[in-house]
């Protein structure tokens, strides 16, 4: 059992800079939570506060109902995996993995069993006599994870563990983390700025910006129903296209294009009739055929799909079209919008049914 609860957490540095504002989160036992956001949004600071490496300025942190807000890091029963691995270069992999237990003066035979078990899980059995410098980046990161596993902590904390790896290795190590989570069924908090990692790994995502939580939800919730323009733009690759449009008698009128609304959409946008809103359309929700004309500037073939960049009546637009296309600069493509997202122009919050914001 490891249920973590963060209530009204603030982080204010000595120079009065506030990095985290009123952070609230309940992490269930065995859940993998991903904190995602751009650099400087406060996600690593939050993780470090949970780990005990940063003081919590305000709020309460509890682990299984026990208040650990002021508990020193060493007594929190949490293990952290860092971006730079933080392995001891002069020690072998075995010694690195056994180090924390050796410091605790555990029985060497027990340490041995734990290290071998962790090495087996992480497929490091044949590497135990090597030094970290003899391993690849992915293997080193697995050692860092192994060092956490042997401690059998209540909570695993990952601070951008894949950022130092190349794309191929990142993808492979990501799969290993998913398998590891399934196997250990441990509570994990994972920080990343990579939305692909967040979408693929998380049970729930916490999307942050400027120290504020923007939305907490499952990857699909954040993808399909983003709370605001920030989440809509941050989650999904390429980012969502955002247009300024006006709601006029059942249609959306943009600069040089018009989009008819379904009765349900009309009802949703009824309070915004004759007002300006922001329209969001994901590139993958744009298809060929339709009435709107897109002027192509670049064509990026990805194999199964093609990213076509261009302008829609002067507005920048990216479409992810199915199949292989060979459009050239200056070509015109007829497009249609599929699923659309509406946002209040002033608050940037999503407009949901009955004109409710969010």
């Amino acid at each position, binding site marked *: 059992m490891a249920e973590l609860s963060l209530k009204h957490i603030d982080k204010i540095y000595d120079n009065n800079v506030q990095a985290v504002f009123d952070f609230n989160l309940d992490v269930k036992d065995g859940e993998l939570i991903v904190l995602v956001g751009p650099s400087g949004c406060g996600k690593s600071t939050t993780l470090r506060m949970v780990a005990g490496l940063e003081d919590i300025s305000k709020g309460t942190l509890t682990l299984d109902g026990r208040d650990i807000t002021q508990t020193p890091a060493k007594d929190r029963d949490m293990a952290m995996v860092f971006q730079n691995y933080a392995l001891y270069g002069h020690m*072998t992999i*075995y*010694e690195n993995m056994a180090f924390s237990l050796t410091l605790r003066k555990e029985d*060497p*035979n027990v340490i*041995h*069993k734990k*290290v071998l078990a962790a090495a087996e899980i992480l497929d490091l059995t044949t590497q*135990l*006599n090597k030094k970290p410098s003899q391993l690849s980046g992915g293997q080193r990161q697995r050692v860092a994870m192994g060092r956490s596993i042997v401690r059998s902590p209540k909570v695993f904390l990952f601070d951008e563990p894949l950022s130092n790896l190349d794309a191929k290795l990142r993808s492979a190590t990501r799969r290993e983390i998913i398998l590891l989570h399934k196997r250990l069924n441990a509570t994990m908090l994972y920080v990343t700025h990579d939305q692909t990692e967040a979408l693929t790994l998380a049970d729930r995502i916490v999307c942050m910006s400027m120290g504020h939580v923007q939305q907490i939800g499952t990857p699909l919730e954040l993808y399909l129903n983003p709370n605001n323009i920030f989440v809509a733009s941050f989650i999904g690759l390429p980012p969502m296209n955002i247009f300024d449009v006006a709601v006029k008698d059942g249609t959306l009128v943009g600069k040089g294009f018009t989009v008819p609304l379904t009765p349900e959409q009309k009802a949703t946008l009824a309070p915004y009739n004759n007002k300006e809103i922001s329209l969001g359309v994901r590139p993958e929700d744009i298809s060929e055929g339709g009435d709107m004309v897109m002027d192509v500037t670049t064509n990026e073939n990805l194999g199964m799909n093609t990213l076509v960049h261009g302008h829609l009546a002067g507005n920048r637009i990216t479409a992810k079209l199915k199949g292989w296309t060979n459009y050239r600069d200056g070509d015109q493509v007829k497009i249609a919008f599929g699923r659309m997202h509406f946002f209040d122009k002033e608050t940037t919050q999503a407009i949901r049914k009955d004109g409710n914001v969010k």
Partner: protein
Amino acid sequence: MDDQNIRVDRMRFSKNTQSSRLALLAIVLNVLFFISIYKYVCKDASRSDEFYYTALMGASILYNLVFMLATFLSSEGVKNYKPNFSYIMFGLAAIQIARIFIYPVSAHAQSGLMSDGQFIRLIVYLVLSALCLVGAALINLAKSRALAAHTASLEAGKA
């Protein structure tokens, strides 16, 4: 896996620091012997000069260097459970015992050249140094044989 097996299995990933440290201790004891031997008590300095300043002194100094180098290399060898270094250590230990009869005994035989206390101290250093080497060698032999048998059984199990 029972405790005995785990203890042996641990050796696959840990060094034989016990033997290695004993070998290093043998070097320290040899240094103590070396810095104590020329501290003569004879009031007539010329008699000491006559006794010590011979080719034997040069050979003794040279052997000290060889001993320290060989023991250090052996300590690294036994650290990795290499059994051959145990035999080198047995040889070095035998020479340490033999050295008792070269300088301390012959110098002590010269009246007034060495006190009884100094003589006993020198013998103790050499004997302890030899014992450390024998201990290191025996521990290494036992461990390296156990590890070799364990590794063979693991490989047989894999096959």
